[in-house]
């Protein structure tokens, strides 16, 4: 349809709409376009007009401001196609959701349709301002997921490339091996046949039948090259099946870094992405505060006459004796068990243990017997 050759094949009398110079005078003339307005002009015009910074398009009636760096060569002959491809590339770049991100196949299809509609709108210039605004808003909201998906795509592309290369290499190797094998087989067959003939020629009539049988056996041997080819096909099929299973089994492992789904308003049916809760720091006390007390709050120091003596006593201090230890211990003992009501709690405990003991009555019986024996 269109290619670089296409440009070369163009008419000799092609004329630049800006400077009116024709290819006839300047065979090396190249035409450039700017995706801003898609007006065609020759390279020398671009150099002349835009090398000193952005300027408006020289085509009459077009007041678009163009920059030199955006000028490029046309890919397609038809400017309309060129424009559509540009628009499509841009939109696809932004709306790059993947199938795994959707709840269902249906939702994904809806998304694809929506995307096509946007592209069509932009191409046909219907509601351009509104559509552009939507696109911009979406791009800003989903910056992260867009980037992530782009990275994924790139990754996929490179891995696909690698795979293709690998496969080509494998094919080449296989062909070579097959060729070699075929060659050797052919040589072998030839040798066998020669051998066969010489033996027939030299041997007696009685041996002829046995020699012929042997020759059949050789033919029955299947070529290993053919066998390996079959193996390869089988493996490939199995691998295909495996990837299919994997795809259905673990649909979404990547691309869920986007956090919540801000694009949910614009694109429907996106799968709710669950970000795993960040792991809490490990708590060795299982929620228990080590120094927590319910009955008292410990002070730094207590005014207590005999403790003052200790505080200043070197013999006590030398051992590393800490009065804080004393405070915490005495205060803990002062209140430990204040709310333990022995009468109630022990009664309850006894009731429970009585239930537990009533089962192994045999041990009790044995013990009683032992006591009785002892007494007797």
């Amino acid at each position: 349809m269109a290619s670089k050759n296409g440009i070369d094949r163009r008419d000799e009398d092609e004329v630049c709409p800006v400077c009116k110079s024709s290819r006839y005078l300047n065979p090396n003339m190249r035409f450039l376009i700017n995706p801003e307005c898609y007006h065609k002009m020759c390279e020398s015009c671009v150099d002349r007009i835009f090398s000193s910074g952005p300027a408006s398009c020289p085509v009459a009636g077009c007041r678009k401001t163009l920059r030199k760096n955006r000028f490029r060569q046309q890919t397609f002959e038809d400017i309309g196609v060129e424009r559509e491809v540009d628009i499509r590339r841009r939109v696809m770049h932004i709306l790059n959701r993947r199938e795994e991100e959707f709840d269902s196949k249906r939702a994904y299809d809806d998304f694809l349709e929506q995307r096509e509609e946007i592209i069509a709108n932009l191409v046909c210039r219907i509601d351009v301002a509104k559509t552009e605004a939507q696109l911009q808003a979406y791009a800003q909201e989903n910056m992260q997921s867009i980037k992530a998906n782009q990275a994924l795509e790139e990754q996929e592309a490179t891995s696909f490339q690698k795979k293709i290369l690998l496969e080509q290499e494998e094919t080449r190797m296989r062909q070579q091996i097959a060729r070699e094998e075929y060659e050797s087989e052919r040589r072998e067959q030839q040798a066998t046949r020669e051998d066969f003939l010489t033996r027939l020629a030299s041997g007696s009539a009685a041996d002829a039948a046995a020699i012929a049988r042997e020759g059949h056996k050789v033919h029955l041997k299947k070529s290993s090259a053919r066998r390996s080819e079959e193996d390869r096909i089988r493996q490939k099929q199995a691998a295909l099946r495996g990837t299919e299973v994997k795809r259905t089994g673990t649909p979404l492992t990547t691309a869920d870094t986007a956090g919540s789904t801000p694009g949910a308003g614009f694109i429907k049916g996106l799968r709710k992405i669950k970000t795993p809760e960040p792991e809490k720091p490990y708590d060795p006390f299982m929620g228990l505060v080590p120094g927590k007390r319910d009955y008292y709050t410990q002070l730094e120091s207590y005014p207590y006459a005999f403790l003052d003596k200790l505080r200043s006593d070197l013999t006590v201090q030398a051992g590393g004796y800490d009065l804080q230890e004393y405070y915490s211990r005495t205060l803990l003992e002062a209140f430990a068990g204040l709310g333990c009501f022995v009468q109630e709690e022990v009664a309850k405990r006894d009731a429970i243990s009585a239930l537990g003991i009533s089962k192994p009555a045999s041990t009790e019986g044995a013990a009683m017997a032992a006591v009785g024996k002892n007494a007797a």
Partner: protein
Amino acid sequence: MIEDDIYRTSSQFRLWSYTESSLKSLRTKTNHIASERVRAALRRARERHASSTPSATGTPQTGSDVEEKDIECLTPEEELVLVRYYCEKTVELGETYRPPLPTNVRVSLPTTGFTQRLEPFFLRGQPKLTSITYQATAIQYLRRFYLTNSPMTYHPKSIMACALFLATKTDNYYMSLRQFAEGIPGDTTADDVIAPEFLLMQGLRFTFDVRHPFRSLEGGVMELSAIAQGQAKPAPHLPHHTPESLKQGLLSIAPPPVPSTSITDRIGRAHGATRELLKSAAQMTDAYFLYTPSQIWLAALLLADRPLAEFYLDTKLGGPIDPTAMETEPSNLQNPLYDLRTKLLQVLTDCGALLQSYTPLSSDPDQMKILKRIAKKLYHCQNPEKVNLKRDSAVPRSTPAIDAGAVTSESETERLAKKRKLEMEQKQRGAHDMFGPELVLDRTRH
């Protein structure tokens, strides 16, 4: 309350806390089993006597009158009185010790490693620092031991010294056995002291930790004096208090029964009186079995200085509920700890009544008369097979030492005895070998 949970892990709560009824039934059971054994033992002794004497001396029927009527054993109540008397004797023994024992061993200071060894050293000059926990520990050992053993089986006189000696060890006051035995009045030898040691430990179910209310009292008094100085912090559940409001509250409580010059003086007096109560009444009654140490000391403080103790409790558990405000807000909004408070006050009242009911035996001639009668009775119903404890203790006991108590402990002792016997045999088999016994059991060789 986390402090209560900490206390619930102690062996005192797990193994040595009883309800009044279970305590009583346990004592009755112990007494019953012990009486049975005593009767059986006496009968056996008489039979042995009868089988040996007729052939030798030919005086057949002299003892038969005694034999015919059943031996009169002690009742559980009599046993209890007897044990209490010997508890008092334990205190006496500790106090009249020659060379004089410091009346305390476990100081109320915390102990960690190195400082533990320092303690007796810096305690000697400061008798005020000390409490009588070591005698108290010995008393509690005796009381615990006689829950599952009867004085008819083991006479308290033989157990008493051992309990005191064991308490010096568990309460971290080291004293050599020889030194200890020398201090005991009378002709008690070191062997006599140590003979029932294993028996005693078994009776204690190998739990040596006794939680006393003495250090608790120190903590409470310490905090009270901090309040008096206006330095105290409010309790975690009652954050509306301030140090100043606490101090004002303390200064405005009702005057004590005995007028005092200052609030510090008042706290000091209450402290002393409470400690006296804890030293005597708390030890000689069943308070340790029925209540927790913190309840005991608060009950004692209530007896010593009621307004002070009530004020202190209010700082911890909130004040009484204003009945006029009852309509506007329910009780748990006014004071979230109100339920605990009412329950605790009831328990403290009960405990206080128990402490007050105590009168020293030796000061009461009627009681002494009863005691003499019991002692005489005990002389007749003493289990003759358990008199010589020295012989029994030579070999680790293989017979069940505990009269009653947990049923499991009986089978447990049997199992242990069997195991020990096996080990002994093993040892003897290898004793002749120069390089000791086989490392691997020679089960494989047979």
